[in-house]
């Protein structure tokens, strides 16, 4: 093990984090694509000369494909490499709009590190505006593929390459602006990193890199892996549709083998994952020993730490890689697609995999993991503005997080750090629409001892005719509840009563019509009949839970409080009374006695054995009427 100076390790680690943040700040402030600017769908990463990721806040792409095609010895200061080609990215790039820039860092004439950033750009060509055709059947419909190229050669940009790329985009200026933002930011980061090497020398800095990576491995092993009982744990979850075939269960399955004395101690086997989809939900994961997926999935392990504060402190760098073995099924599955299978909506699969791992760990640990969340989906409108120019408004709206053993889920959060919604006052000044409501979808959070967080309830009135688009999973299936907690409500969109599916390229909306988007609520954790009745009453007061749900899901009987603003409630137990409860000015009061009786009755009616997971009412419609999967029991 390394003998790096603990003081210098701290200094190097702090500098790496600071450089990563500076690069990301520079990109966020100057990029044009809303996906980068607002949704923060971009990441910077710092890698050493052995291609190991050193920084830990973000996932990132890989340097492997660049080095594969451009040997390190042939790189020069001022070089900037570029790629977005999924199948030539060694698994680091999931879909073509993610444009990746890599800058080598030099010290004494040799490459000592890499600064890399990728960002999700507006449009890189292909069949539809935004380069995410939900009905694509091959990667050729998804846009321009660029394998690793030298975009800048010793400080000189390759005009030919830039011209080809911008010519293939519907939004060439925005693409050029975004690329400038990424390149400038990475070059700045590379200068900062070179200063670190100049100051302490290559040997000392690299010893610190070793120590930083080894520390992460050791911390994960000691604080997180130690909490997982040895044995074999299996679970699976599903994407519900691929944009091409009718909805069905596209399984992603993990068999997790835990042996603390083995190397590696965790083996993740994806065997049992469904065949590759005809539509664009595939993820090319089986490259470079799955090193991208190892770093992508490892953050889930942080939920095993003792407190949320500690979870937040744990970085995920290359140190997690030796702890995780991966076994991929044969070619031709969702995770091992064969070129040119389409991949633009691969978030369906890789986001779900986070949940599958969380579910396996929940089974392994008796429920000490959060219930499910789903936070990436794209909704938007496109058309022609009053000035005659085409526009694309596309937003990533988050959802509720799942209940945790220590807390309720949170409302409208997002898995990508700092991913933001678009301010209404910005949207209305830019696009022909009016947001009539930006609220929370009542009852969307899965009932539980710790309730799931709520999704959005957003109402958008179009002021000109336009087309609606959406790329969303979890519109049939729900975010699962665990350990007695119930599923949250799925994603849904209605346009004046017309119900949309999850994958829509261009549904017409007429001027004056309102698009109503409700996003997913998180799953609940623990039995809702155990929830503090006062918390339920507060949820009703706040409009997060309906009186009906309080009564039926939580077994809580409420009566109105005094105070003005609440109408008089007549006796009886009809709907009028429940409506009155919700409007009761200072919130309703709990009828403790009636609640105890009602809960006793509801408990008595529970079936003897219940599955450990609740997948919600949509599951039987895709499973051939089975209420649960065979892996759902402890």
């Amino acid at each position: 093990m390394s003998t790096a100076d603990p003081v210098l390790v701290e200094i190097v680690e702090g500098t790496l984090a600071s450089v990563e943040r500076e690069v990301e700040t520079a990109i966020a402030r100057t990029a044009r694509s809303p996906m980068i600017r607002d949704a923060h769908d971009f990441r910077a990463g710092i890698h050493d000369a052995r291609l190991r990721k050193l920084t830990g806040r973000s996932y990132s792409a890989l340097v492997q494909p660049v080095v594969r095609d451009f040997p390190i010895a042939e790189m020069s200061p001022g070089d900037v490499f570029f790629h977005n080609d999924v199948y030539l990215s060694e698994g680091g790039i999931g879909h073509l709009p993610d444009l990746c820039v890599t800058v080598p860092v030099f010290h004494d004439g040799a490459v000592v590190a890499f600064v890399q950033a990728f960002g999700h750009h507006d449009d890189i060509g292909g069949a539809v505006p935004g380069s995410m055709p939900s009905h694509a059947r091959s990667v050729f419909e998804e846009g321009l593929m660029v394998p690793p190229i030298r975009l800048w050669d010793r400080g000189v940009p390759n005009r030919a390459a830039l011209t080809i790329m911008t010519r293939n985009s519907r939004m060439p200026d925005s693409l050029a602006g975004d690329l400038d933002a990424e390149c400038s930011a990475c070059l700045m980061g590379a200068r900062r990193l070179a200063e670190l090497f100049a100051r302490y020398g290559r040997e000392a800095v690299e010893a610190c890199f070793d120590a930083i990576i080894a520390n992460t491995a050791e911390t994960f092993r000691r604080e997180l892996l130690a909490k997982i009982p040895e044995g074999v744990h299996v679970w699976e979850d599903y994407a519900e549709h691929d944009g091409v075939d009718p909805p069905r269960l596209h399984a992603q399955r993990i068999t997790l083998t835990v042996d603390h004395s083995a190397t590696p101690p965790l083996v993740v086997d994806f065997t049992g994952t469904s065949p590759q989809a005809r539509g664009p939900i595939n993820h090319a994961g089986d490259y470079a020993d799955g090193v991208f997926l190892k770093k992508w999935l490892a953050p889930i392990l942080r939920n095993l730490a003792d407190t949320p504060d500690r979870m937040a402190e744990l970085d995920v760098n290359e140190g997690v890689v030796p702890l995780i073995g991966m076994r991929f099924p044969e070619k031709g599955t969702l995770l091992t697609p064969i070129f040119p299978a389409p991949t633009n909506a691969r978030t369906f699969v890789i986001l779900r995999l986070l949940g599958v791992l969380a579910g396996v760990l929940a089974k392994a640990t008796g429920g000490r993991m959060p219930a499910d969340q789903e936070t990436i989906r794209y909704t938007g409108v496109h058309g022609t503005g009053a000035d005659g120019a085409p526009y694309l408004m596309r937003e990533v709206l988050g959802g509720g997080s799942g209940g945790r053993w220590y807390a309720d889920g949170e409302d409208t959060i997002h898995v990508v750090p700092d991913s933001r919604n678009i301010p209404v006052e910005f949207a209305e000044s830019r696009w022909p629409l009016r947001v009539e409501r930006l609220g929370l979808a009542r009852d969307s959070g899965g009932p539980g001892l710790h309730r799931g967080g709520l999704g959005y309830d957003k109402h958008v009135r179009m002021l000109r005719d336009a087309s609606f688009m959406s790329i969303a999973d979890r519109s049939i299936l729900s975010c699962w509840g665990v350990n007695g907690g119930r599923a949250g409500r799925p994603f849904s969109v209605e346009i004046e009563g017309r119900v949309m599916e999850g994958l829509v390229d261009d549904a017409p909306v007429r001027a004056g019509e309102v698009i109503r988007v409700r996003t997913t609520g998180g799953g609940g954790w623990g039995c809702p009949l155990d929830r503090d009745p006062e918390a339920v009453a507060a949820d009703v007061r706040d409009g997060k839970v309906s009186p009906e749900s309080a009564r039926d899901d939580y077994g809580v009987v409420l009566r109105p409080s005094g105070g003005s603003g609440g109408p008089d409630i007549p006796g009886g137990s009809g709907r009028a009374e429940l409506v009155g409860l919700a409007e009761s000015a200072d919130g309703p009061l709990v009828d403790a006695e009636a609640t105890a009786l009602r809960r006793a009755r509801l408990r008595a009616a529970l079936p003897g054995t219940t599955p450990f997971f609740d997948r919600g009412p949509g599951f039987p419609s895709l499973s051939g009427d089975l209420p649960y999967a065979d892996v759902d029991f402890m």
Partner: protein
Amino acid sequence: MRSVRIGVDTGGTFTDVVAVDERTGEITTVKTPSTPADPADGFMEGVRKVLTAAAAAAGAGTEAAAAAGAGGLESVTAVVHGTTVATNQLLEDRVSGLGFVTTEGFEFILEIARQSVPDGYGNSYFWVKPPRIVPVHRVRTVGGRLDHTGAEVRPFDVEQAVAAARWFRERGITAIGVCFLHSYANPAHELRMREVLAREHPEAVVSISSDVLREYREYERSVTTLVDAAVKPTVRRYIAGLADRLGMPFSVMKSNGGVLSAAEVVHRPVTTVLSGPAAGALGAALIASTAGHPSVITLDGGGTSTDVAVVVDGEPSLTTEGSVGRYPCKIPMIDIVTVGAGGGSIAWISPEGTLKAGPRSAGADPGPLCYGRGGTDVTVTDAHVFLGRVPPYLLGGEIPLDADAARRGVEELAGKLGLSAERTAVGILEISAFNQSNAIRRITVGRGLDVRDFPMVAFGGSGPLPACRLIDILGLPSVLVPPDPGNVSAFGLLTVDVKDDHVRTFVTRDLSLADAADVFGELEGRAAEALTREGFPADRHVYARSADLRYYGQAYEVRVPVPAGPPDEAWRAEVLDRFHEAHRRLYGYGYRDDPRHGVEWVNLRVSGIGPITRPAVRRRPYGAAEPPPPAAVREVFHDGWARVPIHRRAALAPGMTVRGPAVIEEYGSTLPLHPGFTARMDEYGNLEVRREP
């Protein structure tokens, strides 16, 4: 005759007071303990002390002395106050009991916020959202809707407004913020809401967003408005009490680097949230400019944290993206980065086995181990004491320190790390200096400035301690340590113009000259009224225009100064040119000659400025280069233990140069000079620290 101006800076531990006699240039400084229960007590005691001291300094017989000796304020022309009343309320999270009124359909705006989860990828699984500034059950909505041009889409719903006002009244909720969509473009609905509240709920203290921040982005404007509403009762009560006791008008330092009369500041108290730190940056800016360094980094080192700012051409840079505690405040404030690295920062070992310093602090109480007040953790100050780099006492010997306790603590920590005690102590200081360096880089590199071009002014009690290390780490040309480093903030209060900011969001890709003239005219009209109320005749009004622009499609703007005068084509070309250049400087590229990249105007701004006479810093002639013999010699550790000369700063005169290793001590602060560094006193009494060539 009145000629004395007084600055009172209330800090966490001490209230610093500086008086300057404008006729003689004589500066008097005093320190008195702060009185957190009622800061006005410390304020009044400080004023009394400084007048007495000034009188004594002036000697009997002079007019000022006679007046001051009578204990009165007859000689005083102005009092300027830097306060932490609002800052502390926010930092300590004493924000509760607020009500909020917003547009129908948006009652969950605070819960939703911007949906962002801080820090790492995947944190959304475990993150626990902190409580909202107003919980949703204290939010009321009112119908009525404007569009982004300010045109009315649906009329204001008076009935709902009345119902909301009564709802708050019945529940005794008296601090209320109001933010309606697009009110930056047209405040009409908010003004009507305020009327309804005044009529139905006269006890309520109300802040409306179009008064606080006329800028788009509804969530940020809402929170800023609510912060204003939250601090309003506190600041009003405090200012009223102080005005009563002082018996004369006074001014309050604002976060934007200007002052405003106390009578005016209570209407928008959110503008005072960085009152204290702003004064420090301004004081340091003036001291540095006087000494010939118009562009500097300022570093104000305190017990728990260090505040860093950048000064370019004499002016501290401003931001509108600041926050205090966990509350974003989008009003203009001096761009100060605060890092949790101060004298009280605690050294600890992470679970990964690396050494850390801060951000947790032992504060002033119990304080470092060496204070002997029950502290149990090794702090940065303990490391300094152990290494002999600061003396084993505080305030010139008034308070002795327990050097043995510091040594025992450092040795214990060293044992756990398997390092020597010296290496451990040096390591603590090294890590603390790196934390400060990264903050300094954040506000320089991040803004396109090269830190190596900037001398640094180090002040505050702990600011001068890391001077030599920061020169090395950052490649700074020099560090300037002003005389009386602990009093720079109070001095800064005397250097400040009256300043009031006005902004209007006006998003367009093609700003017509007529619109430009209209909006700037309106903003300058508002600024003029404010300056007139402050007592400035029209011929002394100064208006500084600026504008926020961006390339079409970007979400963030770059602010550039805008020329005065009636807008014409050349005027517009000049502004655009400044924008392209500023963007290039900040981010390394721009599109001056590329018409494909359109420019969008976003915010137009005017600061109304009422200039005051800045105090002159007294100058002394250069003399001999050789310092007097050291006052003492002490064992100090650098590369090894050695006997090192200890100089008293008071014994040094302009031109004298001290060579490291040495320690220069004064009443409130210490400058450890490492081997290879020199400190030369300039003609204004500053010590200029450099690496020896």
